[in-house]
């Protein structure tokens, strides 16, 4: 699949924003983070900025961005529509939680519950994003059980290193924040590894033989494509990625999205309260988000669409 940059940026940025929102609301309810209104600005501020910029970016690849509001209408059947609704609804408790905390210093009782409602909305929104891909039978590398955990785990890991960085910058982070960030990164690494194992070891049930129904005669080969030049289907669905680049990029994801963030997250608490601690936790954020951008690019580039079977692909 052709990786559209707006979609890569959207899922990475809003995933990190929703992950940060989710963990901030829970840590607030459990009393693991400072209750100062300024800490709300340092956590819910970037979370909202990431979510909003991501959602805006997601409209850039539309043919008619001005009609985007129509996407809220088909929640009965469409995961994309459900995602839009979940994203819009999540802003309501997020606004209550954020305003009460940032401007009035109220973090407990109903405001904590509003935060937890926003956290639930964050999970639902990331889940619906993942289901857009998960539900497409046409793409085996998306239509499998590892896609939803993959999206949730990446949102959690990038959100967790962001919360850790905010807590380090504040000065007196509780150890549990670092432990959660480390564990979330490790979990995301595990899920991604399982995802890659899955796509490397399973085959699609569709072949050129089932696509043409001519399998009874033996192997089916494309002799002549319909047109001399590439069409929309080949450009959008037939994106080709050399195998060697795929391996290099996977290695980059392993280090950038998981290895470096885990190492920086583990060492930052040693220098807690100092500038070095804050700098290390910020480095973890930069690598985690950069690594996740590459991960998302690969998620698209490695995905093969069934329609390519009509254009000479042996498998999809």
């Amino acid at each position: 699949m052709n990786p559209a940059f707006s979609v890569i940026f959207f899922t990475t940025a809003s995933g990190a924003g929703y992950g940060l929102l989710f963990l901030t609301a829970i840590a607030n309810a459990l009393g693991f983070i400072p209750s100062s209104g300024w800490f709300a600005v340092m956590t819910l501020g970037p979370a909202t900025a990431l979510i909003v910029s991501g959602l805006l970016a997601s409209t850039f690849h539309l043919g008619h961005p001005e009609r985007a509001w129509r996407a809220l209408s088909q929640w009965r059947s469409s995961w994309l529509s459900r995602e839009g609704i979940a994203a819009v609804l999540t802003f309501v408790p997020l606004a209550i939680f954020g305003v009460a905390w940032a401007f009035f210093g109220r973090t407990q009782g109903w405001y904590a519950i509003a935060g937890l409602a926003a956290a639930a909305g964050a999970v639902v929104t990331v889940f619906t994003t993942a289901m857009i891909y998960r539900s497409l039978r046409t793409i085996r590398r998306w239509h499998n059980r590892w896609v939803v955990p993959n999206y949730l785990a990446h949102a959690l890991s990038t959100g967790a290193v962001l919360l850790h960085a905010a807590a380090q910058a504040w000065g007196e982070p509780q150890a549990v924040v670092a432990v959660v960030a480390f564990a979330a990164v490790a979990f995301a690494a595990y899920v991604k590894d399982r995802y890659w194992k899955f796509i490397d070891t399973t085959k699609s049930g569709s072949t050129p033989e089932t696509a043409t129904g001519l399998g009874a005669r033996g192997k089916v080969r494309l002799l002549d494509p319909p047109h001399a030049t590439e069409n929309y289907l080949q450009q959008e669905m037939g994106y080709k990625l050399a195998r060697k680049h795929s391996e290099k990029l996977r290695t980059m994801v392993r280090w950038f999205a998981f290895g470096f963030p885990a190492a920086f997250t583990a060492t930052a608490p040693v220098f807690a309260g100092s500038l070095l601690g804050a700098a290390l936790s910020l480095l973890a954020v930069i690598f985690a988000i950069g690594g996740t951008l590459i991960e998302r690019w690969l998620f698209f580039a490695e995905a093969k669409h069934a329609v390519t079977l009509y254009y000479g692909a042996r498998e999809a």
Partner: protein
Amino acid sequence: MTSLPAPVAGAKKLGLVIDLDTCVGCHACAVNCKEWNTGGHSAPLPDFDPYGANVSGVWFNRIHTFEAGEGPDSRTVHFPKSCLHCETPACVTVCPTGASYKRAEDGIVLVNADTCIGCKLCSWACPYGAREFDADEGVMKKCTLCIDRIYNENLDEADRVPACVSTCPASARHFGDLGDPNSDVSKLVEERGGYALMPEMEYAPVNRYLPPRPAKTAPGCTGASAALERPTAAGDGTHPLLRWMDRLLSR
């Protein structure tokens, strides 16, 4: 509404039956499709760089050519492909705006260009490549089964078939109601063992493909004599001069 209409027993399912045995791969159906539809329901069908080296454009019907099998039993098969108007099309259900819909009355899958946001998700959901994005208009386009021909009372009744069907010089394309087991197309499918493409996707396509008939290789099976009679020595009925020449030349 992108939810699918409730299935009704005996409902009309308009579609195409494509005969892979007789298709000669002339692309006339694709050309006539483009010709009609660039002025029809989804008009225009854009062409980009039409006279340049990298020409591309929106087509509702494309003809692939495959080779199947090896050696003397292999066949070259011309393979026209357009929207199969599936019974459970995910291209419709994934649509977030309701622009994609399946008509309850005849099963035709259409796009409302006025509400399409151009997110392209429907084209991702289609395994058959039936949907093509119009980058000029920013909306998705697809085969309409020539909805503006088949119900068009301004046309002669014989012409109320999809453009691809009307133009096929080999009569390899047939149009009709595949929901009616007694229709001509249903009988044809029954008789020739018509099949659906990629049934494992579970989209339940309406269109059917008729497989190429087995190659005729046994001597005499086409109706012509198995071999020409071997020329023999000139018989008794031949002119005496020719018999003399035959003897002379046979020495």
